[in-house]
């Protein structure tokens, strides 16, 4: 590709897509020194390049490489580009266990090796076995991913044009005909539409997070009908593009990610990330331990130390502050208790973001499913929607 066919999160920074495309070909060789963890990430898990705390605690350095987040990009990095023998940890939007575990690419996580795991109450609350969020980190009753980031998505709107909006119905409201944008992604836009159709009683959908062929076909038919009526102005593909759609007021209602709203607000825009009555599209990033045949026992030990570090307060606060997502329960407290590292305004920001995302998780909605049972049918139906 086209490097331009970006899916969720990978376009978080414009530079990322470029480095991701380049990264396919230039995966680093395993460092000769035993002291480096090779860490593949989609641009969210980089604490501003500062791994000094981890290095001081473990003796290991971290070599971070940006990769794309599309399922194919992730699998390509691990399989086609020899990444399985290169990387120790990959940090991507979770829910990829089926392809990763079935292809023997990642290891089961021994949670006892991470002291911070037990302190992460989010796991028990939202992501543990039996909870709907389990699909982001677990597979067949085992844990394969360490949750690093949690978030609930909805849509954004310009209140000066639309007034207050509180339902996904706004995306399909004829009042905003031609002023609506969707993300080009069946696991986000498709699933949000399904959530709306289900809650509004417009379609019989048992699980918006894992639809049957008939159910997803109903969603596609609905979207095609809306498209033909001229409801949508554009479907966007990159972070910058979505931000521009908001800041130029090209559209008034846009299915998008919250950090885009943060960026638009920082440019002086009056834009609101909606609190829809149907709930949110919930998701989590997971750090997977790559089944790397070249790794020694000591290196595996260091990889576990890194996973544990990522569940800790400093890393969590840093990522929340930089990226705007909730990370772990220690983050806000750590930022507040360490003013030398996190000035008051940053600590406040970490606390606010954490509280806001927590509220979303308590409210619920639907858990994004990155690899639904009928994923190929989703893809071909989405093609039908786009081609219609």
């Amino acid at each position, binding site marked *: 590709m086209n490097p331009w066919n970006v899916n969720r999160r990978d376009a978080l920074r414009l530079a990322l897509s470029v480095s991701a495309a380049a990264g396919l070909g230039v995966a680093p060789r395993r460092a000769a020194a035993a002291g480096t963890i090779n860490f593949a990430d989609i641009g969210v898990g980089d604490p501003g390049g500062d791994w000094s705390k981890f290095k001081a605690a473990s003796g290991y350095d971290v070599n971070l490489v940006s990769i794309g987040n599309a399922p194919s990009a992730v699998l390509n990095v691990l399989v086609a580009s020899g990444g399985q023998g290169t990387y120790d940890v990959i940090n991507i939007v979770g829910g990829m266990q089926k392809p990763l575990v*079935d292809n023997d690419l990642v290891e089961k996580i021994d949670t006892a090796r991470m002291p911070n795991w037990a302190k992460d109450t989010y796991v028990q609350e939202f992501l543990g076995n039996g909870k709907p969020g389990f699909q982001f980190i677990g597979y067949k009753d085992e844990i394969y991913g360490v949750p690093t980031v949690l978030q609930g998505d909805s849509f954004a709107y310009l209140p000066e044009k639309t007034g207050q909006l509180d339902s996904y119905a706004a995306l399909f409201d004829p009042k905003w005909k031609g002023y609506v944008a969707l993300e080009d992604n069946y696991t986000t836009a498709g699933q949000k539409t399904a959530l709306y159709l289900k809650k509004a009683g417009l379609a019989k959908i048992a699980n918006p997070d894992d639809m049957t062929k008939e159910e997803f076909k109903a969603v596609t038919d609905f979207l095609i009908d809306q498209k033909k009526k001229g409801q949508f102005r554009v479907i966007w593909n990159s972070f910058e593009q979505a931000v521009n759609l908001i800041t*130029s007021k090209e559209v008034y209602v846009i299915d998008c990610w919250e950090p885009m709203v943060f960026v638009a607000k920082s440019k002086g825009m009056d834009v609101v990330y909606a609190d829809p009555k149907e709930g949110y599209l919930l998701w989590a990033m997971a750090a997977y331990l790559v089944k790397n045949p070249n790794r020694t026992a000591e290196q595996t030990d260091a990889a576990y130390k890194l996973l544990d570090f990522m569940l800790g307060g400093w890393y969590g606060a840093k990522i929340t502050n930089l990226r705007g997502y909730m990370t772990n329960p220690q983050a806000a407290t750590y930022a507040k208790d360490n003013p030398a590292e996190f000035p008051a305004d940053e600590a406040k920001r970490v606390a606010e973001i954490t509280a806001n995302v927590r509220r979303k998780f308590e409210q619920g909605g639907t858990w994004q499913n990155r690899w639904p049972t009928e994923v190929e049918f989703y893809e071909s139906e989405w093609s039908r929607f786009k081609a219609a």
Partner: protein
Amino acid sequence: MLALEHRQQIAKPPFSVGWRGFWQAWGRRVLLCLPLIFVGIFLVVPLGLTVMISFWERAGLKFRPAFSLASYVSLIGGARLDVLQRSLIVALEATALSLVIAYAIAYFLARKVEPATARIVLVLFTVPFLINYIVRNVSYTVLLGRTGVVNTALVAAGVTDAPLDWLLYSDFAVLLGLVSAYMPFMIFPLFLSIGAIDRQYIEASALLGASPFTTFRTITLPLSLPGVFAAALFGFVGCLGESAVPIILGGVGYELIGNTITSSMDVLNYPLAAALSSIVILLMLLLMLGWYLVFDMRSFLGRILEWRA
């Protein structure tokens, strides 16, 4: 005397015999082999693999060697064939439009201006290639959006009451993106073939009483056809494979074949992506074959060499 010398020069063997000649001959062969090896490794082998994989079978997320038509069969009746059809139509439209514009520019440069000026203008037409294609396309969204420069100016001038929605995220925007991306490529072969037409034919036609239009229709156009076809090929191949323009300027899922190939790879359906690619490659090969059968390529390439000399 001069003529004799000239004849002797021609009669001289291309290189002197002996060891020097031997090495020169082999050096020449090796040099000729390099591009062949390059084309073989970087073009023929990957294309061969693509065609081969298109017949493979899927086994879960992976695929295994086989001779299966499943990927091709799955195309029948699906949306992807519509996408292919649309891609062909859009590529044809964009190529035709580009051809008209590029021909006019090339004709003007080859016939109506001083060669020195023509060269400067031709150099200017290479400037778009120096700008990243994504930047170029995104710039259009800034220019043509509802609150963009063009709409703001049109509304301010009273030409229209409300911003024109069709300027962006529309068929128009896609055509504009494709034409501005590939039309400059097409000027060069057209300029070469028009410039190489012997002016005496045109003067003779005028002397015999033909109108400028008749001269153009019966002399200039037919003689420039190899250039027209080369230009059309450059444009068509580029437009058919384009994936950034429809994504950035097309609006609601304006999908062309390049996009649907990428999309099928997202669910790791490599055989399907390979099948779609193979169909596109086959179409291109047929076009090339047509070019080869209809035109003598040497006439066109020979003119490039003349022009450079």
